[in-house]
């Protein structure tokens, strides 16, 4: 664990009977970073977040925040703020009262409740009962709760869920500003384009296990699609296939994946094949995600 590591998961496993929801999951986060947490439905993202905040007990492994488990944090709400799947609101309470009760339980002043309501754009709705809130407003309330303790680590499970395009943009800018203040943010989202715009790194899990991690550029570069037009497409296709590329031929044009443009150029040169066109079309995060998860769907 390095000096600025805020969150560290080490071999975290969670089994529900015979089902392994999280499988030997290990990763860490440093201060000021935003980590996109992706995976298909039921891949174990929410369970992982619940394990981190102590709502679910790991069968094996450990999740540490600043070197200690959540339950042993001296001041948990000022260390971690979270939007976790399954954590709801009291419909009969006014927004300000729901926050004030939470604040009162941990000795935070009511003034801070007003501040976070303002931060999430709910000042005008402070006196309204949460039960009458739209999905987007409830998401903003969840964010208000997460920010209540001004924490250094934010765990956000689908924070943009239910928000309109302006709201999604607002969340993106808010999270960027929070990260710029030095906070670490672990964010899961089914809006992969948003994750691509927001996250520094991405962690993709499937069946509870890590299948890819790295920067978005690293994740997408491995799946770049190349368009190759040559003087001898049949022979070039054979050369490329032998060297591990996936090749689809249509007349003189080859569509190639699994190999870099530099490698294609070198192989063509070695074989004495003239290239008339070599173009790389970068796949986006969604395509990379679908390929990694074998089209299992997006959560």
């Amino acid at each position, binding site marked *: 664990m390095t000096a600025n590591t805020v969150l560290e998961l080490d071999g975290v496993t969670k089994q529900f009977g015979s089902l392994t929801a999280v499988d030997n999951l290990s990763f860490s986060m440093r201060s000021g970073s935003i980590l996109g947490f992706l995976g298909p439905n039921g891949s174990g993202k929410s369970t992982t977040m*619940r394990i981190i*905040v*102590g*709502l*679910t*007990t790991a069968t094996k492994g450990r999740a540490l925040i600043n070197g200690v488990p*959540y*339950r*042993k*944090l001296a001041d*948990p*709400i000022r260390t*971690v703020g*979270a939007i*976790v799947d*399954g*954590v*709801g*609101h*009291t*419909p*009969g*309470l006014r927004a300000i*009262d729901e926050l*004030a*009760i*939470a604040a*009162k*339980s*941990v*000795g935070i002043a009511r003034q801070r409740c007003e501040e976070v309501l303002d931060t999430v754009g709910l000042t005008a709705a402070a006196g309204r009962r949460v039960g009458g809130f739209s999905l987007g407003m409830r998401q903003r309330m969840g964010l208000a*709760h997460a920010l209540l303790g001004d924490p250094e680590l934010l765990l956000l499970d689908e924070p943009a869920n239910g928000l309109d395009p302006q709201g999604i943009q607002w969340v993106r800018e808010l999270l960027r500003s929070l990260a710029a203040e030095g906070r670490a943010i672990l964010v899961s989202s089914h809006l992969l384009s948003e994750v691509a715009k927001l996250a520094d790194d991405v962690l993709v899990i499937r069946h509870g296990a890590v299948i890819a991690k790295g920067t978005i550029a690293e994740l997408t570069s491995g799946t770049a699609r190349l368009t190759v037009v040559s003087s001898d497409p049949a022979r070039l296709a054979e050369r490329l296939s032998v060297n591990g590329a996936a090749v689809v031929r249509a007349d003189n044009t080859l569509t190639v994946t699994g190999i870099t443009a530099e490698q294609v150029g070198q192989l063509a040169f070695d074989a004495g094949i003239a290239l008339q066109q070599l173009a790389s079309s970068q796949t986006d995060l969604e395509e990379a995600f679908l390929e990694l998860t074998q089209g299992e769907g997006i959560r």
Partner: protein
Amino acid sequence: MQLIAAEITKIVKSRTTLVLTLLGVLLIGVGVVFVVTDDTFTGAFLGTDPQLASLVDQIGGAYIIVLIVGALSLTTEFRHGTIGRTFMLTPSRTAVLSAKLAASALYALVFTVVGIITVVLALTVLGELSLAAIGSQTLRALVITPIGLMLAAILGVAVGAVVRSQVLTVAGTLIYAFLVETLIGQFFPAVARWLPFQALGGVFSSPQTRAAIPDGFAMPLPIGTASAIFLTYVVALLAIAVTLLRFRDV
């Protein structure tokens, strides 16, 4: 103390608490009117010390209200999913449970005061208010009632922690208290008086109330035994509640 204050606020801010408290006031008021106006069981109401004690017993008779308020302090959180946030704010689940127990017990005390006010108001309306006859039996009832109600509230919190489901907790408690134990009382009266709510009835039964129990119905356990038995149920269920709350995922 912050945590207890937050739990008290949750109870106070709940509209269900207000509705249940008003229902409790109604139950106590009806009980007082029955004791004062009906001569069948307790004889003509003369405002004697034993009769005043039996009026205080009416407050204890509304134990189901404080028990349900106690249970709702947890089941409402499970129902709305707010228990997760509560445990994120305070990871010590034992501390959260303790705060809920304290807040629910305090509600039981407040309910006792509301009950006493209801009794006094009902007697005033009926033109029977005379506090001159208050004696040892009434004073004993005034001491026993809040203690019994606090234990009922604690039992409610424990039931809520074990069952979690709001519907199951409320419906199950009502069915068990008023149907199952009553039926067992009908067929096995000697056994029934050892059951939780029959024992609690024994805690709240003054001599006047016991004297009014018709033939064929189980006589409650003596107050000391009844208190010990009910306390045993409370402690046992609380131990299960603490264990489940600490180790079960939420």
